[in-house]
């Protein structure tokens, strides 16, 4: 066990998996010489060579198509998309091919592909580099979607993804790479579709993923000062969604708030709220609340960007409005 950054945790998962399995290779824009735009694959070519750490042209559609074909052939590509915003260019390959090969051809081929990409806002990268598009992809049967909030989860979830028989969209938050935490030295997995209770509490359930988990934990501390004990659930995987853990918690707390960095309409919070009312309607003392990004393209200007995104104060304000907390 060592305290390392989330970036280092991802590197460890990649290195351990690549040492164990020579069918795994990394391909993406600037993953080799440049080291990856967020430094995750820096110097990996020293150990694994140019064939396994492969710089690709700026061709997201072709790249994801190629990676899908290589996976059908029996390799385990790790395709890096510099940001999830560029996944839109590759969405045909991801949605129409990678996610459908197994079912369209009745299991004659599979696509054990990991798509590593970067999501999230908050770095003043303006509207086309700051989107949270996870809900678009979590909508797709045949695809898994994971998005870690801590170094421990990052290593375990990426290890799981690298062993998956089906494609995984793995979304890393742009502002979490430097986050430090305790991470075991040995490989371990975090099962697909397993959420994590990051804090125990009996009064209200706060549900979040990626960077918003840390906002939720901060909110929970502030609520504790007022005598309210919040439970914080980190979804970790958006598909499959761990309904069981959510429902168990809400049946105990009777209140739920989803904190999400994506837009509110048709977002992850909408799905979570629907699940809760479907399965725990009689246990709810109040409607499921959602705190999400303001419905506008995420601006460049720092004050506007910050106003667009949920933070501790906005969540607390909404909670007060909803529950008139003590």
């Amino acid at each position, binding site marked *: 066990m060592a305290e390392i950054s989330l970036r280092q945790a991802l590197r460890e998962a990649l290195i351990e998996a690549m040492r164990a399995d020579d069918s795994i290779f990394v391909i993406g824009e600037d993953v080799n010489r440049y080291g990856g735009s967020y430094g995750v694959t820096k110097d990996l070519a020293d150990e694994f060579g140019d064939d396994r750490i492969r710089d690709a042209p700026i061709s997201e559609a*072709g790249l994801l198509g190629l990676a899908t074909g290589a996976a059908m*052939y029996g390799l385990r590509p790790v395709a890096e998309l510099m940001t999830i915003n560029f996944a839109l260019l590759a969405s045909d390959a991801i949605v*129409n091919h990678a996610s459908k090969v197994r079912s369209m051809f009745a299991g004659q081929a599979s696509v054990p592909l990991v798509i590593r990409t970067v999501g999230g806002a908050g770095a003043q990268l303006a509207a086309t580099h700051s989107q949270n598009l996870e809900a678009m992809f979590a909508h797709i049967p045949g695809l898994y979607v994971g998005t870690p909030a801590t170094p421990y989860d990052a290593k375990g979830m990426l290890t799981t993804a690298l062993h998956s028989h089906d494609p995984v969209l793995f979304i890393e938050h742009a502002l979490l790479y430097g986050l430090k935490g305790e991470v075991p030295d040995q490989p371990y997995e975090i099962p697909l579709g397993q959420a994590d209770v990051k804090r125990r509490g009996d009064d209200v359930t706060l549900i979040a993923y990626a960077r918003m988990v840390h906002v939720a934990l901060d909110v929970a501390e502030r609520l504790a000062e007022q005598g309210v004990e919040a439970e914080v659930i980190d979804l970790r995987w958006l598909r499959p969604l761990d309904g069981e853990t959510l429902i168990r918690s809400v049946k105990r707390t009777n209140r739920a708030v989803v904190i999400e960095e994506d837009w509110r309409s048709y977002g992850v919070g909408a799905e979570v709220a629907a699940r809760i009312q479907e399965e725990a309607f009689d246990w709810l003392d109040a409607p499921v609340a959602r705190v999400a990004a303001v419905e506008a393209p995420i601006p460049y200007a720092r004050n506007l960007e910050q106003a667009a995104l949920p933070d501790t104060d906005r969540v607390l304000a909404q909670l007060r409005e909803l529950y008139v907390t003590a």
Partner: protein
Amino acid sequence: MHFFSAQHNLLGGWAIVGGHIALAVGVAFGMRYRSRDDLVLCIFGDGATNQGYFHESLNMAALWRLPVVLFCENNLYGMGGAVERVSAVTAMARKACAYDIPAQTVDGMDVAAVYRACMQAVEHVRSGRGPYFIEAETYRFRGHSMADPGLYRTKEEEQQWRQRDPIERLRLELGRTGALDDAAFGEVERRAAKAVDEAVRFAESSPAPDISELTRYTYAREAEHG
């Protein structure tokens, strides 16, 4: 479309125009990665050459010298869109030169010529020199689909191309050289027709899939869907 047979190495008929070119290049990438002496034959139409996928895939195939034969059937129409109405470059083989991929144009209505072109392509690819591009000039006798009335082209044009029917030309050529007389050729045609009839009968007499099939192949571990 949508056929796939792992046991025959038939890696699919795909329904997104051009998308499969990237998949084929990916399979070729896998062969190169594993240092296998195999190659991929990727077949697409003139319409696919206007997709971004086509250009991105050709660039990567040439860049990494991947073992793929790119076989373009130029049948002059992408659904109803005549080549000269939708493509600034109407000779498909010329599009390969942007990526320094050697290319040749062949009479796609001449079976022997297509065979020779393919053998040259295979030899080139097997020698490790990367992809090879073939443009076969051909025609689609029938509509794009059952619902296509063919209003975008003339009956005269269709008739002219039908006179170049590659199967009829092959029959005449084999008869002329004495390789296969009409009786033997007729037997080949009967066998082919029988195989098709049996396949249709098999399909039509097979039961509809069980409802459990609906989610069976969504994920490797069925229980994990949703």
